[in-house]
């Protein structure tokens, strides 16, 4: 009976912890499939988590927080799109700069709003999301998967990343497709952040994403840049995270496993996944080239 309980709680924890990863991974999917490398997911998530927590607290509604995260994500996605698509700045360096900007901007704003640089005020327990983000994450992945292969605009996205000249020859603006994709990327990743601050926790705390943006990117690569395999990879990483939380404070015989060893588990799993399987994964052909 104990085993059954353990498995159920691990399963539920995995689903909960996978939610931010799935959203961010779908964000990465949109951007990378359109040909724009996206290491800014971490920053997008931070902005979403922050905007969600602030609006959710101010209006006492998780859904309003969700909407605010959408807007913040679109805004920071547009900033990233402007630099990478219009100014043709190096995508990886710009992405890291966006992450740094989010890390600096958020304490700057919390200081103005709440006169502290730490966490935002906590939402009341009954306002927080119960299960909704989990469902939305899975629905989003399913919708993207359907949209990509079954609709005309889904094919535009694929061609923007694989063969932009062909898309151009068909009379579709690669620039516009990429703009749309990168903005959507910002919105999805911001929802990933918001599901951290409105669902897994009840407020924004500094650097609460803890590398999840990069893990989501690793999941995308591990999932061969396809939506449903990427979702499966997110579940794997979330499982490592759930096991990590479960293992904290567990004793083997006399000695306690050092908590730091347990905490690095998800990062180790990410490295092993990337190192072990990347050989069979192929990036979109025009990824990171910046050409149109």
């Amino acid at each position, binding site marked *: 009976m104990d085993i059954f309980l353990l498995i159920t709680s691990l399963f539920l924890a995995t689903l909960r912890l996978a939610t931010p990863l799935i959203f961010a991974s779908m964000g990465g999917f949109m951007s990378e499939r359109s040909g724009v490398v996206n290491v800014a997911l971490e920053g997008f998530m931070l902005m979403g988590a922050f905007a969600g927590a602030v609006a959710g607290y101010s209006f006492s509604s998780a859904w309003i927080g969700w909407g605010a995260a959408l807007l913040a994500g679109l805004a920071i996605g547009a900033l990233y799109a402007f630099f990478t698509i219009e100014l043709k700045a190096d995508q990886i360096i710009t992405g890291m700069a966006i992450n740094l900007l989010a890390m*600096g901007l958020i304490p*700057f704003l919390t200081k103005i709003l709440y006169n502290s640089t730490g966490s935002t005020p906590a939402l009341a327990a009954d306002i927080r999301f119960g299960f909704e983000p989990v469902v939305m994450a899975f629905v989003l992945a399913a919708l993207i998967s359907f949209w990509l292969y079954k609709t005309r605009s889904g094919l535009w996205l694929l061609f923007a990343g694989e063969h932009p000249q062909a898309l151009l020859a068909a009379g579709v603006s690669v620039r516009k497709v990429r703009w749309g994709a990168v903005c959507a990327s910002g919105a999805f990743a911001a929802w990933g952040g918001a599901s951290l601050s409105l669902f897994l926790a009840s407020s924004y705390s500094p650097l609460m994403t803890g590398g999840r943006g990069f893990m989501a990117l*690793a999941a995308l690569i591990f999932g061969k840049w396809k939506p449903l395999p990427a979702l499966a990879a997110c579940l794997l990483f979330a499982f490592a995270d759930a096991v990590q939380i479960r293992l904290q404070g567990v004793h083997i015989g006399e000695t306690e496993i050092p908590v730091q060893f347990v905490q690095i588990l998800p*990062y180790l799993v990410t490295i092993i996944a990337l190192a072990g399987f990347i050989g069979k994964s192929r990036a979109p052909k025009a990824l990171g080239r910046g050409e149109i």
Partner: protein
Amino acid sequence: MKRVAGFLIGLIVALLLTAFAGENPWNVFLILMKSAFGSMYDLGLTLSYTTPLIFCGLSVAVGFHAGLFNIGAEGQLTMAVVTAAAVGVLFPNIPFPLAPVVAFVAAILMGSFWGWIAGWLRAYRGSHEVIITIMLNFIAAGLASWFTLQIIPNPNSQNPETAVVSANYMFKDYDLIARLFPDTPANASLGFALVFAVLLWVFLWKTTWGYGLRAVGSNAEAAHRGGISEKKVQMLAMALAGAFAGCVALSEVLGSAGQYRIGFSPDYGFIGIAVALLANNNPLGIVAAAFLMGALHKGASDLDLETTTITRDFSRIIQALIILGVTAQGYWSWMKSKRRKN
């Protein structure tokens, strides 16, 4: 010249942002300048930030020259600093001239090992170095915190830091730079940083290995046809990058603090990215860029005290906007094309 303009644009935009917090941007600028260069004490602190930034700038630049983006300098320096402190605490009886050398060699070996992991994974498993180094940063932080708190904690303090290394590991008595700036952590490692910058310049432009490294970075295909092994270069570049980041052990452990303190680094590894970009990866330019970024960081860290609404995190905004300003050189041609349309 365009890089300087990009830097200025980034800095000005960052200062203008302070107006939203109800501050006078010009006033903030004056505070930054005064707190960076105002007195010998302030200058000493600025230089103590400059030294690790030179090391990290060199680390990032080596990677860029080989076509790799090393954002793992933070993890590499963490591992190296802990290693230096561990050697100093665990082997207290090594005599003076030998002791710092042993600790330093151990530190850069550990740093280069940590960098080499990412290089090896890139070369033989095709894993992207950006994600791998970020993950390695988290792992390094975890390992360092475990080693510090469980194995060699400081028995005389509640702070999360290692025990202090024995006195024969420190070169304080011979340190001319430290004498110039009393009461600050500035120390002779600044001299080492300058020497290493020159050495890296010589390595990159005057040796065969350096040529191979740059060849892979500028055109991997051509380098391959020329008989240069891309895999070896990637491992060499990342190991070198780790070694440079590991030199931070020199300024932190052997030169000033004598211990590893968790959180001592205000993300030197990330500021190093801005330093390398600003200097266009030129080792000699990095010295100047590191001084500039060190000054900005020192200035920003005093904003806590000098203003009511702006905190030290503002330093990150400045860095991000400077990186964006320098990287996005496309805005010149973008503005031209807009003007033509109108």
